[in-house]
Protein backbone atom coordinates (compact mmCIF):
# COMPACT_ATOMS: atom_id res chain seq x y z
CA UNK A 1 0.00 0.00 0.00
CA UNK A 2 2.74 2.45 1.05
CA UNK A 3 4.84 1.74 -2.03
CA UNK A 4 1.80 2.09 -4.20
CA UNK A 5 0.96 5.46 -2.60
CA UNK A 6 4.49 6.81 -3.12
CA UNK A 7 4.74 5.36 -6.58
CA UNK A 8 1.40 6.88 -7.63
CA UNK A 9 2.26 10.24 -6.07
CA UNK A 10 5.52 10.29 -7.99
CA UNK A 11 4.31 9.03 -11.35
CA UNK A 12 0.83 10.59 -11.49
CA UNK A 13 1.15 13.74 -9.44
CA UNK A 14 4.85 14.55 -9.67
CA UNK A 15 5.15 14.61 -5.88
CA UNK A 16 8.05 12.99 -4.05
CA UNK A 17 9.65 13.09 -0.62
CA UNK A 18 7.61 13.74 2.48
CA UNK A 19 3.98 13.95 1.54
CA UNK A 20 0.62 14.62 3.08
CA UNK A 21 -2.12 12.34 1.75
CA UNK A 22 -4.78 14.99 2.11
CA UNK A 23 -2.81 17.84 0.59
CA UNK A 24 -0.55 16.14 -1.94
CA UNK A 25 -2.56 13.10 -3.00
CA UNK A 26 -6.15 14.37 -2.75
CA UNK A 27 -5.20 17.99 -3.38
CA UNK A 28 -7.29 19.23 -0.45
CA UNK A 29 -5.60 22.26 1.04
CA UNK A 30 -8.42 23.97 2.91
CA UNK A 31 -8.54 22.44 6.39
CA UNK A 32 -9.91 19.05 7.41
CA UNK A 33 -12.79 17.47 5.56
CA UNK A 34 -14.65 14.18 5.33
CA UNK A 35 -13.57 12.42 2.18
CA UNK A 36 -15.94 10.26 0.25
CA UNK A 37 -13.36 8.05 -1.41
CA UNK A 38 -10.92 5.86 0.50
CA UNK A 39 -7.22 6.38 -0.23
CA UNK A 40 -7.13 3.07 -2.03
CA UNK A 41 -10.07 3.89 -4.29
CA UNK A 42 -8.73 7.38 -4.90
CA UNK A 43 -5.34 6.01 -5.97
CA UNK A 44 -7.07 3.65 -8.38
CA UNK A 45 -9.07 6.53 -9.84
CA UNK A 46 -6.16 8.86 -10.40
CA UNK A 47 -4.00 6.09 -11.87
CA UNK A 48 -6.67 5.38 -14.45
CA UNK A 49 -8.22 7.60 -17.11
CA UNK A 50 -8.31 11.03 -15.51
CA UNK A 51 -7.90 14.77 -15.93
CA UNK A 52 -6.36 17.60 -13.91
CA UNK A 53 -8.23 20.59 -12.60
CA UNK A 54 -7.10 24.15 -11.94
CA UNK A 55 -9.37 25.95 -9.48
CA UNK A 56 -9.29 29.76 -9.29
CA UNK A 57 -10.73 31.71 -6.38
CA UNK A 58 -11.56 35.04 -8.00
CA UNK A 59 -11.03 37.85 -5.50
CA UNK A 60 -9.20 35.99 -2.74
CA UNK A 61 -6.39 37.37 -0.61
CA UNK A 62 -4.21 35.49 1.89
CA UNK A 63 -5.61 35.44 5.42
CA UNK A 64 -9.12 35.71 3.95
CA UNK A 65 -8.77 39.44 3.53
CA UNK A 66 -10.51 39.25 0.17
CA UNK A 67 -14.01 38.30 -0.93
CA UNK A 68 -13.81 34.65 0.15
CA UNK A 69 -14.27 33.62 3.74
CA UNK A 70 -12.91 30.34 5.05
CA UNK A 71 -16.12 28.40 4.38
CA UNK A 72 -16.37 29.68 0.81
CA UNK A 73 -12.76 28.79 0.10
CA UNK A 74 -13.54 25.26 1.28
CA UNK A 75 -16.60 24.94 -0.98
CA UNK A 76 -14.74 24.09 -4.21
CA UNK A 77 -12.79 21.42 -2.33
CA UNK A 78 -16.00 19.79 -1.13
CA UNK A 79 -17.39 20.13 -4.65
CA UNK A 80 -14.34 18.34 -6.09
CA UNK A 81 -14.82 15.51 -3.62
CA UNK A 82 -18.46 15.11 -4.70
CA UNK A 83 -17.49 15.36 -8.39
CA UNK A 84 -14.88 12.64 -7.86
CA UNK A 85 -17.55 10.35 -6.54
CA UNK A 86 -19.95 11.17 -9.36
CA UNK A 87 -17.32 10.70 -12.08
CA UNK A 88 -16.12 7.45 -10.49
CA UNK A 89 -19.38 5.92 -11.78
CA UNK A 90 -18.00 6.10 -15.30
CA UNK A 91 -14.35 5.52 -14.53
CA UNK A 92 -13.13 9.09 -14.98
CA UNK A 93 -10.77 10.31 -12.28
CA UNK A 94 -9.87 13.81 -11.16
CA UNK A 95 -6.12 13.53 -10.75
CA UNK A 96 -4.19 16.65 -9.81
CA UNK A 97 -5.69 19.85 -8.38
CA UNK A 98 -3.93 23.13 -9.02
CA UNK A 99 -5.10 25.88 -6.69
CA UNK A 100 -4.84 29.49 -7.81
CA UNK A 101 -6.25 32.75 -6.63
CA UNK A 102 -6.78 36.10 -8.30
CA UNK A 103 -6.05 38.81 -5.74
CA UNK A 104 -8.78 41.38 -5.17
CA UNK A 105 -6.49 44.03 -6.66
CA UNK A 106 -6.54 42.15 -9.99
CA UNK A 107 -10.15 41.00 -9.75
CA UNK A 108 -11.84 44.39 -9.40
CA UNK A 109 -13.87 43.90 -12.58
CA UNK A 110 -15.04 40.45 -11.54
CA UNK A 111 -17.01 40.66 -8.30
CA UNK A 112 -20.31 40.21 -10.13
CA UNK A 113 -20.50 38.74 -13.62
CA UNK A 114 -22.98 38.14 -16.37
CA UNK A 115 -22.49 35.77 -19.28
CA UNK A 116 -20.39 38.17 -21.35
CA UNK A 117 -18.19 39.11 -18.41
CA UNK A 118 -17.52 35.44 -17.74
CA UNK A 119 -15.96 35.32 -21.22
CA UNK A 120 -13.84 38.38 -20.34
CA UNK A 121 -12.65 36.57 -17.21
CA UNK A 122 -11.44 33.49 -19.07
CA UNK A 123 -9.90 35.78 -21.68
CA UNK A 124 -7.83 37.43 -18.95
CA UNK A 125 -6.78 34.41 -16.88
CA UNK A 126 -5.78 30.81 -17.34
CA UNK A 127 -4.12 28.02 -15.39
CA UNK A 128 -1.52 25.41 -16.34
CA UNK A 129 -2.06 23.88 -19.77
CA UNK A 130 -2.53 20.36 -18.47
CA UNK A 131 -5.63 21.10 -16.40
CA UNK A 132 -9.18 22.32 -16.93
CA UNK A 133 -9.81 25.80 -15.54
CA UNK A 134 -12.67 26.38 -13.14
CA UNK A 135 -13.22 29.90 -11.83
CA UNK A 136 -15.16 30.34 -8.58
CA UNK A 137 -16.73 33.78 -8.41
CA UNK A 138 -18.84 35.58 -5.84
CA UNK A 139 -21.87 36.50 -7.88
CA UNK A 140 -23.22 35.45 -11.25
CA UNK A 141 -26.17 37.68 -11.96
CA UNK A 142 -28.08 35.56 -14.44
CA UNK A 143 -27.04 31.92 -14.01
CA UNK A 144 -25.47 29.38 -11.68
CA UNK A 145 -22.51 28.69 -13.92
CA UNK A 146 -21.30 28.43 -17.47
CA UNK A 147 -19.08 26.27 -19.49
CA UNK A 148 -18.15 25.91 -23.09
CA UNK A 149 -19.44 22.60 -24.40
CA UNK A 150 -16.53 20.48 -25.54
CA UNK A 151 -14.09 23.20 -24.54
CA UNK A 152 -10.66 23.77 -25.98
CA UNK A 153 -7.42 22.43 -24.51
CA UNK A 154 -5.64 25.49 -25.92
CA UNK A 155 -5.85 28.10 -23.19
CA UNK A 156 -4.98 30.82 -25.71
CA UNK A 157 -7.93 30.02 -27.91
CA UNK A 158 -9.86 33.23 -28.54
CA UNK A 159 -13.53 33.86 -29.05
CA UNK A 160 -14.77 31.33 -26.51
CA UNK A 161 -14.61 30.61 -22.82
CA UNK A 162 -11.56 28.52 -22.03
CA UNK A 163 -12.88 27.35 -18.70
CA UNK A 164 -15.94 27.01 -16.51
CA UNK A 165 -17.23 29.81 -14.31
CA UNK A 166 -19.20 28.88 -11.19
CA UNK A 167 -20.79 30.89 -8.41
CA UNK A 168 -20.05 29.94 -4.80
CA UNK A 169 -23.05 28.51 -2.97
CA UNK A 170 -25.04 30.87 -0.80
CA UNK A 171 -25.05 28.49 2.15
CA UNK A 172 -22.63 26.06 3.74
CA UNK A 173 -25.24 23.48 4.69
CA UNK A 174 -24.37 19.94 3.66
CA UNK A 175 -27.20 20.00 1.13
CA UNK A 176 -25.79 23.16 -0.49
CA UNK A 177 -22.23 21.86 -0.47
CA UNK A 178 -23.31 18.62 -2.11
CA UNK A 179 -25.33 20.55 -4.65
CA UNK A 180 -22.22 22.62 -5.38
CA UNK A 181 -20.51 19.34 -6.27
CA UNK A 182 -23.26 18.44 -8.72
CA UNK A 183 -22.98 21.90 -10.26
CA UNK A 184 -19.21 21.52 -10.66
CA UNK A 185 -19.63 18.05 -12.19
CA UNK A 186 -22.27 19.48 -14.54
CA UNK A 187 -20.10 22.36 -15.77
CA UNK A 188 -16.94 20.27 -16.11
CA UNK A 189 -19.14 17.67 -17.83
CA UNK A 190 -20.00 20.29 -20.46
CA UNK A 191 -16.36 21.18 -20.91
CA UNK A 192 -15.57 17.50 -21.40
CA UNK A 193 -18.18 17.34 -24.16
CA UNK A 194 -21.47 16.42 -22.52
CA UNK A 195 -24.79 17.93 -23.59
CA UNK A 196 -27.81 18.26 -21.39
CA UNK A 197 -29.61 15.00 -20.70
CA UNK A 198 -33.32 14.36 -20.61
CA UNK A 199 -33.71 13.24 -17.05
CA UNK A 200 -33.34 15.27 -13.89
CA UNK A 201 -31.53 12.44 -12.11
CA UNK A 202 -28.60 12.76 -14.52
CA UNK A 203 -25.63 15.00 -13.66
CA UNK A 204 -26.25 16.78 -16.96
CA UNK A 205 -29.79 17.57 -15.87
CA UNK A 206 -32.85 17.72 -18.01
CA UNK A 207 -33.71 20.03 -20.83
CA UNK A 208 -37.13 18.62 -21.49
CA UNK A 209 -38.48 21.84 -22.98
CA UNK A 210 -35.53 21.98 -25.39
CA UNK A 211 -34.67 25.60 -24.60
CA UNK A 212 -30.96 24.85 -24.23
CA UNK A 213 -31.08 25.43 -20.51
CA UNK A 214 -30.37 22.45 -18.31
CA UNK A 215 -32.13 22.06 -14.99
CA UNK A 216 -30.41 20.23 -12.15
CA UNK A 217 -31.35 19.57 -8.55
CA UNK A 218 -30.05 17.56 -5.63
CA UNK A 219 -31.04 14.28 -7.32
CA UNK A 220 -28.93 14.92 -10.45
CA UNK A 221 -26.25 12.37 -9.62
CA UNK A 222 -26.16 9.72 -12.35
CA UNK A 223 -23.96 9.36 -15.41
CA UNK A 224 -24.30 6.81 -18.21
CA UNK A 225 -21.61 4.67 -19.82
CA UNK A 226 -22.09 6.54 -23.04
CA UNK A 227 -21.55 9.87 -21.29
CA UNK A 228 -18.42 8.40 -19.72
CA UNK A 229 -17.15 7.44 -23.16
CA UNK A 230 -17.74 10.97 -24.45
CA UNK A 231 -15.79 12.41 -21.53
CA UNK A 232 -12.93 9.98 -22.09
CA UNK A 233 -12.63 11.23 -25.66
CA UNK A 234 -11.89 14.83 -24.60
CA UNK A 235 -8.43 16.28 -25.28
CA UNK A 236 -7.79 16.98 -21.59
CA UNK A 237 -8.14 13.34 -20.58
CA UNK A 238 -4.87 11.71 -19.58
CA UNK A 239 -4.07 8.08 -19.93
CA UNK A 240 -3.25 5.76 -17.09
CA UNK A 241 -0.08 6.47 -15.08
Amino acid at each position, binding site marked *: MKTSLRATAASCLGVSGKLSVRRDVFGY*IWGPMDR*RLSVKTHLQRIRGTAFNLCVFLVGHDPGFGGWFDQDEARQPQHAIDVMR*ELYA*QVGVGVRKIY*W*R*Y*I*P*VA*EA*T*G*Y*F*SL*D*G*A*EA*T*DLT*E*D*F*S*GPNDGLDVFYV*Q*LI*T*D*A*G*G*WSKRNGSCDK*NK*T*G*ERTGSVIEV*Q*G*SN*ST*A*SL*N*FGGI*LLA*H*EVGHYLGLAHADTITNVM*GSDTDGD*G*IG*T*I*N*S*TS*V*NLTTSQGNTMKGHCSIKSAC
Partner: protein
Amino acid sequence: MTNFTIGPDNSGLSPTLLQAISATSLEVELDLPRLAAQDLADLKAILKGEKRTNVPISTKRALNALVRSERSPETRAITASILSDSRQPNRVRSLAALNLSLMPAPETERALIQNLQEANTQLQASVVRSLGRIGTVQAFEQLQRLDTASELVRRQVAFAKQTIAYRSDSSAPDLQAERTRLPLAQRDQLSAPARSTTGWATFSAKPVTGHPVQEKVRNIWGSTYGLTLNQTLGLEVDCGTAQHFLFLHERLQQGRFLAGLRSRPSIIGLLAPEPEPEQHVTIRYVLLANPSDQGLALAVTRTNGDLVYGGDGTLTRAGLRFTLRDVGPTLTPTEIVGQVSDDEIQLTLRIGPENSRPKRHGVAI
Protein backbone atom coordinates in the same frame (compact mmCIF):
# COMPACT_ATOMS: atom_id res chain seq x y z
CA MET B 1 -24.50 6.52 -4.54
CA THR B 2 -25.03 9.31 -2.03
CA ASN B 3 -28.60 10.50 -1.74
CA PHE B 4 -28.60 14.27 -1.69
CA THR B 5 -32.37 14.68 -1.70
CA ILE B 6 -33.89 17.07 0.78
CA GLY B 7 -37.24 16.54 2.48
CA PRO B 8 -40.57 17.32 0.82
CA ASP B 9 -42.15 20.73 1.14
CA ASN B 10 -45.59 21.06 2.65
CA SER B 11 -46.02 24.81 2.66
CA GLY B 12 -48.53 24.71 -0.18
CA LEU B 13 -46.24 26.15 -2.83
CA SER B 14 -46.41 24.83 -6.37
CA PRO B 15 -43.62 22.53 -7.59
CA THR B 16 -42.81 25.14 -10.28
CA LEU B 17 -42.25 27.86 -7.72
CA LEU B 18 -40.23 25.57 -5.48
CA GLN B 19 -38.10 24.56 -8.44
CA ALA B 20 -37.59 28.24 -9.30
CA ILE B 21 -36.40 29.37 -5.87
CA SER B 22 -34.96 26.26 -4.21
CA ALA B 23 -31.43 26.54 -2.89
CA THR B 24 -30.64 23.12 -4.32
CA SER B 25 -31.99 23.49 -7.81
CA LEU B 26 -30.82 25.49 -10.81
CA GLU B 27 -31.61 26.23 -14.38
CA VAL B 28 -27.91 26.22 -14.83
CA GLU B 29 -26.93 28.36 -17.79
CA LEU B 30 -29.77 30.83 -17.58
CA ASP B 31 -31.31 30.86 -14.18
CA LEU B 32 -34.08 33.37 -14.68
CA PRO B 33 -37.35 31.51 -14.16
CA ARG B 34 -40.55 33.18 -15.31
CA LEU B 35 -43.53 32.59 -13.06
CA ALA B 36 -47.29 32.47 -13.57
CA ALA B 37 -49.59 34.79 -11.60
CA GLN B 38 -50.28 32.64 -8.51
CA ASP B 39 -46.64 31.60 -8.14
CA LEU B 40 -45.60 35.22 -8.49
CA ALA B 41 -48.06 36.26 -5.77
CA ASP B 42 -46.65 33.53 -3.48
CA LEU B 43 -43.10 34.60 -4.26
CA LYS B 44 -43.85 38.21 -3.36
CA ALA B 45 -45.35 37.06 -0.08
CA ILE B 46 -42.24 35.00 0.67
CA LEU B 47 -39.90 37.89 -0.11
CA LYS B 48 -41.97 40.26 2.02
CA GLY B 49 -41.71 37.79 4.91
CA GLU B 50 -45.46 37.15 4.91
CA LYS B 51 -45.19 33.52 3.89
CA ARG B 52 -42.77 30.88 5.09
CA THR B 53 -41.33 27.87 3.33
CA ASN B 54 -40.01 24.80 5.04
CA VAL B 55 -37.36 24.03 2.43
CA PRO B 56 -34.24 26.11 1.97
CA ILE B 57 -34.75 28.78 -0.67
CA SER B 58 -32.19 30.91 -2.46
CA THR B 59 -33.03 34.60 -2.12
CA LYS B 60 -30.80 35.25 -5.11
CA ARG B 61 -32.88 32.95 -7.30
CA ALA B 62 -36.06 34.40 -5.85
CA LEU B 63 -34.95 37.94 -6.75
CA ASN B 64 -34.17 36.89 -10.31
CA ALA B 65 -37.48 35.05 -10.71
CA LEU B 66 -39.27 38.15 -9.45
CA VAL B 67 -37.65 40.63 -11.82
CA ARG B 68 -37.90 38.20 -14.74
CA SER B 69 -41.60 37.72 -14.16
CA GLU B 70 -42.68 41.27 -13.50
CA ARG B 71 -41.11 44.70 -13.62
CA SER B 72 -43.49 46.81 -11.60
CA PRO B 73 -43.37 49.37 -8.78
CA GLU B 74 -44.06 46.47 -6.41
CA THR B 75 -41.12 44.45 -7.75
CA ARG B 76 -38.95 47.53 -7.40
CA ALA B 77 -40.10 48.11 -3.81
CA ILE B 78 -39.44 44.49 -2.80
CA THR B 79 -36.02 44.52 -4.48
CA ALA B 80 -35.13 47.85 -2.85
CA SER B 81 -36.15 46.56 0.58
CA ILE B 82 -33.83 43.56 0.19
CA LEU B 83 -31.04 45.89 -0.87
CA SER B 84 -31.55 47.87 2.34
CA ASP B 85 -31.93 44.82 4.60
CA SER B 86 -28.69 44.45 6.53
CA ARG B 87 -29.69 40.92 7.64
CA GLN B 88 -29.32 39.71 4.05
CA PRO B 89 -25.88 38.53 2.86
CA ASN B 90 -23.97 41.16 0.92
CA ARG B 91 -24.03 38.97 -2.16
CA VAL B 92 -27.83 38.92 -2.17
CA ARG B 93 -27.99 42.67 -1.51
CA SER B 94 -25.53 43.20 -4.38
CA LEU B 95 -27.80 41.30 -6.74
CA ALA B 96 -30.75 43.38 -5.53
CA ALA B 97 -28.75 46.52 -6.33
CA LEU B 98 -27.88 45.24 -9.81
CA ASN B 99 -31.44 44.08 -10.53
CA LEU B 100 -32.73 47.55 -9.71
CA SER B 101 -30.96 48.82 -12.81
CA LEU B 102 -33.44 46.74 -14.84
CA MET B 103 -36.21 49.04 -13.63
CA PRO B 104 -35.06 52.59 -14.29
CA ALA B 105 -37.14 55.24 -12.52
CA PRO B 106 -36.54 58.16 -10.15
CA GLU B 107 -37.55 55.89 -7.22
CA THR B 108 -34.93 53.34 -8.26
CA GLU B 109 -32.23 55.97 -8.36
CA ARG B 110 -33.28 57.22 -4.92
CA ALA B 111 -33.20 53.70 -3.46
CA LEU B 112 -29.71 53.15 -4.81
CA ILE B 113 -28.43 56.52 -3.60
CA GLN B 114 -29.74 55.71 -0.12
CA ASN B 115 -27.43 52.69 -0.06
CA LEU B 116 -24.42 54.40 -1.59
CA GLN B 117 -22.55 54.84 1.69
CA GLU B 118 -22.48 51.07 2.41
CA ALA B 119 -19.46 49.99 4.39
CA ASN B 120 -19.06 46.70 2.51
CA THR B 121 -17.07 47.62 -0.58
CA GLN B 122 -18.43 44.81 -2.78
CA LEU B 123 -21.98 45.89 -2.06
CA GLN B 124 -21.05 49.54 -2.48
CA ALA B 125 -19.44 48.73 -5.84
CA SER B 126 -22.65 46.99 -6.96
CA VAL B 127 -24.72 50.02 -5.99
CA VAL B 128 -22.34 52.27 -7.93
CA ARG B 129 -22.46 49.94 -10.90
CA SER B 130 -26.23 49.99 -10.95
CA LEU B 131 -26.29 53.79 -10.66
CA GLY B 132 -23.97 54.00 -13.64
CA ARG B 133 -26.52 52.09 -15.69
CA ILE B 134 -29.59 54.14 -14.81
CA GLY B 135 -28.42 57.21 -12.87
CA THR B 136 -28.97 60.84 -13.79
CA VAL B 137 -27.31 64.05 -12.72
CA GLN B 138 -28.42 63.35 -9.11
CA ALA B 139 -26.43 60.13 -9.01
CA PHE B 140 -23.51 61.82 -10.75
CA GLU B 141 -23.30 64.46 -8.02
CA GLN B 142 -23.37 61.80 -5.31
CA LEU B 143 -20.66 59.81 -7.05
CA GLN B 144 -18.59 62.94 -7.50
CA ARG B 145 -18.61 63.39 -3.71
CA LEU B 146 -18.05 59.74 -2.83
CA ASP B 147 -14.86 59.25 -0.90
CA THR B 148 -13.45 55.73 -0.99
CA ALA B 149 -10.20 53.96 -0.38
CA SER B 150 -11.35 50.89 -2.30
CA GLU B 151 -9.94 50.36 -5.77
CA LEU B 152 -12.96 48.19 -6.61
CA VAL B 153 -15.32 51.05 -5.80
CA ARG B 154 -13.10 53.69 -7.39
CA ARG B 155 -13.09 51.87 -10.71
CA GLN B 156 -16.83 51.45 -10.71
CA VAL B 157 -17.28 55.12 -9.81
CA ALA B 158 -15.11 56.18 -12.75
CA PHE B 159 -17.07 54.03 -15.19
CA ALA B 160 -20.44 54.98 -13.71
CA LYS B 161 -19.67 58.70 -13.92
CA GLN B 162 -18.60 58.27 -17.50
CA THR B 163 -21.71 56.38 -18.60
CA ILE B 164 -24.00 58.84 -16.80
CA ALA B 165 -22.23 61.80 -18.41
CA TYR B 166 -22.45 60.26 -21.88
CA ARG B 167 -26.11 59.44 -21.40
CA SER B 168 -27.24 62.64 -19.74
CA ASP B 169 -28.48 65.77 -21.49
CA SER B 170 -27.52 67.84 -18.49
CA SER B 171 -25.27 70.84 -19.10
CA ALA B 172 -23.99 70.84 -15.52
CA PRO B 173 -20.29 71.81 -15.69
CA ASP B 174 -19.10 68.61 -13.94
CA LEU B 175 -20.89 66.41 -16.45
CA GLN B 176 -19.55 68.40 -19.35
CA ALA B 177 -16.06 68.09 -17.96
CA GLU B 178 -16.56 64.34 -17.61
CA ARG B 179 -17.59 64.06 -21.25
CA THR B 180 -14.39 65.69 -22.41
CA ARG B 181 -12.41 62.98 -20.62
CA LEU B 182 -13.06 60.25 -23.15
CA PRO B 183 -12.74 57.51 -22.09
CA LEU B 184 -11.85 56.87 -18.47
CA ALA B 185 -8.34 55.94 -19.48
CA GLN B 186 -5.85 58.45 -20.82
CA ARG B 187 -6.28 59.89 -24.26
CA ASP B 188 -2.85 58.76 -25.45
CA GLN B 189 -3.98 55.18 -25.09
CA LEU B 190 -6.56 55.86 -27.77
CA SER B 191 -3.99 56.47 -30.45
CA ALA B 192 -2.19 53.14 -30.39
CA PRO B 193 0.60 52.94 -32.96
CA ALA B 194 -0.25 51.51 -36.35
CA ARG B 195 1.01 47.98 -37.01
CA SER B 196 1.45 46.07 -40.19
CA THR B 197 -1.73 44.14 -40.78
CA THR B 198 -0.35 42.05 -43.61
CA GLY B 199 -1.60 38.52 -43.31
CA TRP B 200 -4.37 39.41 -40.89
CA ALA B 201 -7.80 37.90 -41.41
CA THR B 202 -10.38 40.38 -42.69
CA PHE B 203 -14.10 40.36 -41.91
CA SER B 204 -16.80 42.77 -43.04
CA ALA B 205 -19.77 43.58 -40.85
CA LYS B 206 -23.15 42.92 -42.42
CA PRO B 207 -26.19 45.09 -41.82
CA VAL B 208 -29.19 43.29 -40.37
CA THR B 209 -32.59 44.90 -40.70
CA GLY B 210 -36.16 44.46 -39.57
CA HIS B 211 -37.64 41.71 -37.45
CA PRO B 212 -34.41 39.86 -36.48
CA VAL B 213 -33.12 43.06 -34.89
CA GLN B 214 -36.31 43.48 -32.86
CA GLU B 215 -35.99 39.88 -31.75
CA LYS B 216 -32.42 40.42 -30.57
CA VAL B 217 -33.33 43.61 -28.74
CA ARG B 218 -36.11 41.70 -26.99
CA ASN B 219 -33.69 38.94 -25.94
CA ILE B 220 -31.26 41.27 -24.21
CA TRP B 221 -30.94 40.39 -20.57
CA GLY B 222 -29.38 42.99 -18.32
CA SER B 223 -28.86 46.69 -18.67
CA THR B 224 -28.85 48.59 -21.96
CA TYR B 225 -27.07 51.46 -20.19
CA GLY B 226 -30.06 53.71 -20.62
CA LEU B 227 -29.95 53.48 -24.41
CA THR B 228 -33.05 53.21 -26.48
CA LEU B 229 -31.88 50.90 -29.22
CA ASN B 230 -32.51 51.01 -32.93
CA GLN B 231 -35.07 48.24 -33.49
CA THR B 232 -34.73 48.04 -37.25
CA LEU B 233 -31.00 48.11 -37.93
CA GLY B 234 -27.92 46.54 -36.42
CA LEU B 235 -24.66 45.02 -37.64
CA GLU B 236 -23.51 41.44 -37.57
CA VAL B 237 -19.80 41.37 -36.79
CA ASP B 238 -17.94 38.15 -37.53
CA CYS B 239 -14.52 37.88 -35.90
CA GLY B 240 -13.70 34.48 -37.32
CA THR B 241 -13.77 32.59 -34.04
CA ALA B 242 -16.83 34.40 -32.70
CA GLN B 243 -19.86 36.29 -33.95
CA HIS B 244 -21.05 39.49 -32.36
CA PHE B 245 -24.00 41.78 -32.91
CA LEU B 246 -23.76 45.57 -32.79
CA PHE B 247 -26.86 47.28 -31.44
CA LEU B 248 -27.10 50.93 -32.41
CA HIS B 249 -28.47 53.94 -30.57
CA GLU B 250 -31.93 54.83 -31.79
CA ARG B 251 -30.55 58.19 -32.96
CA LEU B 252 -28.47 56.39 -35.61
CA GLN B 253 -31.04 55.94 -38.35
CA GLN B 254 -30.42 55.51 -42.04
CA GLY B 255 -30.43 58.90 -43.75
CA ARG B 256 -28.85 60.61 -40.75
CA PHE B 257 -26.11 58.31 -39.44
CA LEU B 258 -23.47 61.00 -39.55
CA ALA B 259 -25.64 63.65 -37.96
CA GLY B 260 -26.66 61.19 -35.24
CA LEU B 261 -23.06 60.29 -34.55
CA ARG B 262 -21.84 63.87 -34.41
CA SER B 263 -24.71 65.51 -32.56
CA ARG B 264 -23.24 65.11 -29.07
CA PRO B 265 -20.97 62.90 -26.97
CA SER B 266 -22.88 59.72 -26.34
CA ILE B 267 -23.01 55.96 -26.01
CA ILE B 268 -23.59 55.08 -29.65
CA GLY B 269 -23.94 51.34 -29.46
CA LEU B 270 -23.63 48.08 -27.56
CA LEU B 271 -21.85 44.98 -28.77
CA ALA B 272 -23.05 41.54 -27.70
CA PRO B 273 -21.81 38.04 -28.49
CA GLU B 274 -24.28 36.12 -30.65
CA PRO B 275 -25.88 33.80 -28.13
CA GLU B 276 -26.18 30.07 -28.43
CA PRO B 277 -29.53 29.19 -30.03
CA GLU B 278 -32.48 30.16 -27.84
CA GLN B 279 -30.31 31.84 -25.25
CA HIS B 280 -30.43 35.38 -24.04
CA VAL B 281 -28.21 38.24 -25.18
CA THR B 282 -25.82 39.92 -22.74
CA ILE B 283 -23.94 43.06 -23.65
CA ARG B 284 -20.16 42.72 -23.71
CA TYR B 285 -18.89 46.08 -24.96
CA VAL B 286 -20.08 49.67 -24.73
CA LEU B 287 -19.25 52.08 -27.60
CA LEU B 288 -18.65 55.75 -26.82
CA ALA B 289 -18.22 58.60 -29.27
CA ASN B 290 -17.16 62.16 -28.67
CA PRO B 291 -17.36 64.57 -31.63
CA SER B 292 -14.70 67.18 -32.32
CA ASP B 293 -14.20 69.77 -35.08
CA GLN B 294 -12.13 67.38 -37.19
CA GLY B 295 -14.20 64.25 -36.60
CA LEU B 296 -14.69 62.25 -33.44
CA ALA B 297 -12.95 60.18 -30.80
CA LEU B 298 -14.13 56.62 -30.27
CA ALA B 299 -13.74 54.21 -27.39
CA VAL B 300 -15.00 50.71 -26.70
CA THR B 301 -15.07 49.48 -23.13
CA ARG B 302 -16.01 46.29 -21.40
CA THR B 303 -19.06 46.41 -19.19
CA ASN B 304 -16.79 46.67 -16.16
CA GLY B 305 -15.17 49.81 -17.58
CA ASP B 306 -11.93 48.34 -19.02
CA LEU B 307 -11.01 50.20 -22.19
CA VAL B 308 -10.58 47.62 -24.97
CA TYR B 309 -10.48 49.50 -28.29
CA GLY B 310 -9.77 53.14 -28.97
CA GLY B 311 -9.36 55.34 -32.00
CA ASP B 312 -10.69 58.29 -33.90
CA GLY B 313 -12.50 59.35 -37.02
CA THR B 314 -11.74 62.11 -39.49
CA LEU B 315 -14.23 63.93 -41.62
CA THR B 316 -13.67 63.59 -45.35
CA ARG B 317 -15.71 64.60 -48.32
CA ALA B 318 -17.36 61.16 -48.37
CA GLY B 319 -18.21 61.15 -44.70
CA LEU B 320 -16.31 59.98 -41.66
CA ARG B 321 -13.41 57.55 -41.81
CA PHE B 322 -12.39 55.90 -38.60
CA THR B 323 -9.88 53.43 -37.20
CA LEU B 324 -9.93 51.68 -33.85
CA ARG B 325 -7.22 49.45 -32.43
CA ASP B 326 -6.98 47.19 -29.43
CA VAL B 327 -5.50 49.20 -26.60
CA GLY B 328 -6.71 47.16 -23.67
CA PRO B 329 -7.11 43.65 -22.39
CA THR B 330 -8.34 41.81 -25.47
CA LEU B 331 -6.50 38.70 -26.50
CA THR B 332 -6.59 39.27 -30.25
CA PRO B 333 -4.77 42.07 -32.07
CA THR B 334 -7.59 43.88 -33.80
CA GLU B 335 -7.99 46.80 -36.14
CA ILE B 336 -11.45 48.10 -36.92
CA VAL B 337 -11.69 50.44 -39.88
CA GLY B 338 -14.81 51.96 -41.31
CA GLN B 339 -16.60 54.71 -43.01
CA VAL B 340 -19.86 56.38 -42.13
CA SER B 341 -22.02 58.50 -44.41
CA ASP B 342 -25.57 59.55 -43.69
CA ASP B 343 -26.83 56.52 -45.57
CA GLU B 344 -24.32 53.80 -44.83
CA ILE B 345 -22.12 52.33 -42.13
CA GLN B 346 -19.22 50.24 -43.43
CA LEU B 347 -17.12 48.34 -40.96
CA THR B 348 -14.18 45.99 -41.50
CA LEU B 349 -12.33 43.98 -38.88
CA ARG B 350 -8.75 42.82 -39.20
CA ILE B 351 -7.64 40.18 -36.76
CA GLY B 352 -3.98 39.34 -36.21
CA PRO B 353 -2.78 35.74 -36.12
CA GLU B 354 -0.96 35.78 -32.78
CA ASN B 355 -2.34 36.68 -29.39
CA SER B 356 -1.51 40.25 -28.52
CA ARG B 357 -0.80 39.60 -24.88
CA PRO B 358 -0.22 36.70 -22.53
CA LYS B 359 -2.96 35.70 -20.14
CA ARG B 360 -2.46 36.18 -16.43
CA HIS B 361 -2.22 33.06 -14.31
CA GLY B 362 -3.18 34.17 -10.81
CA VAL B 363 -1.19 33.22 -7.73
CA ALA B 364 -0.48 29.61 -6.77
CA ILE B 365 -1.77 28.62 -3.34
